């Protein structure tokens, strides 16, 4: 089961999103209202995807996501933005490799689609990486076999 971490200082947002994922997906959504606590959780548990609010009292969403990236570089990062911080969100796409920003108020169906696509993309990337590793290993043993053949005939 894919695991999602959600952080927003407004509990009404975390509750809504937790309910949304619980009722309409089989992802496990873990929510936090404190970015620091979320980062501590990222040290102990692996997440496939992280959704963060932009405007929070202690750390802004971009700083949070870049610190999250240090802990878990493979987790997909999504930023939730309000009205005033859209420009910053767009800049962050390049700065911290943001997968997507979603504006508040979000549309449930659109958000679920973004998360589903992101998780599928991450799974495909992981499979691809695995296949590349397998291919490299196969190439290595093939080379060894080739060397043995050469040694046998020369």
């Amino acid at each position, binding site marked *: 089961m894919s695991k999602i971490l959600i952080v927003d200082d407004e509990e009404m*947002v975390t*509750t809504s999103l937790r309910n949304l994922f619980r009722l309409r997906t089989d992802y496990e959504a873990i929510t936090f209202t404190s970015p620091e606590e979320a980062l501590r959780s990222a040290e102990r548990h692996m997440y496939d995807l992280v959704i963060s609010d932009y405007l929070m009292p202690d750390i802004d969403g971009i700083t949070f996501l870049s610190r999250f990236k240090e802990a878990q570089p493979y987790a997909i990062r999504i930023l939730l933005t309000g009205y005033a*911080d859209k420009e910053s969100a767009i800049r962050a796409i390049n700065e911290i490799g943001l997968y997507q920003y979603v504006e508040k108020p979000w549309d*449930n169906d659109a958000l679920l689609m973004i998360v589903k696509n992101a998780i599928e993309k991450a799974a495909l990337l992981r499979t691809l990486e695995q296949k590349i590793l397998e291919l490299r290993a196969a190439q290595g043993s093939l080379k060894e076999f080739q060397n043995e053949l050469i040694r046998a005939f020369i």
Partner: protein
Amino acid sequence: MSKAPELVHELRTPLAAIRSNHDILEKAFQSLRAHLGTNPGDETLNLLAIVEESLRISRLARERLEAVIRSVREERRQTNLHDAIESALALLGHELKGRIRIVKDFGDITAVDARPDQLHQVFMNIILNSAQAIQGTGEIRITTRQDGPMVRIMISDSGPGISPEIRDRIFDHGFTTKGAQSGMGLGLVICHKIIEDHAGHIEVHSDIGKGATFTVVLPAAPGAEKEG
């Protein structure tokens, strides 16, 4: 500096939560209905009625929040405050009828440079709060006065008054005394932001047992005539 972007920002979060939950509730309601047999029991029907009523309330909350967000983009113009108060009273008629007596003491005041829909929201929220503070029957007095370059609107209720601890937090985001079922603690926060955006301020005075008075102070529009 304009507080409008900040106001929109603060309203988008509760709007997002309401919209998302409304959508979840609506889908749950549809699937609940689809799964019901031909002869649902009383308990199931009661449950359906509760969900349907929750949907209606969340739709209302959503529409009100969207109206405030829309009004931020409205153009400012010379606004007659007495009209804004009267239109708020007309909409609250059902809430006040037979329980709250409204006493109007309107003075000679000038127009203000404002977004009329937003001022309408401010008066709606304050009058509704005053009405909800009054247990049983009571009175709300609305007084308007010119005070040099400023216009003062005082809304006093005959409710139980507000304790100093609550008075200090009354404009805080998310603060409510109405319990989780009734309020999100947004009404007075919205009022405060709107009035600040109009270069004015709101004061609240109260003595326990003697009711509370909310005073909205706004600058008169430059060159405006008194509206009487």
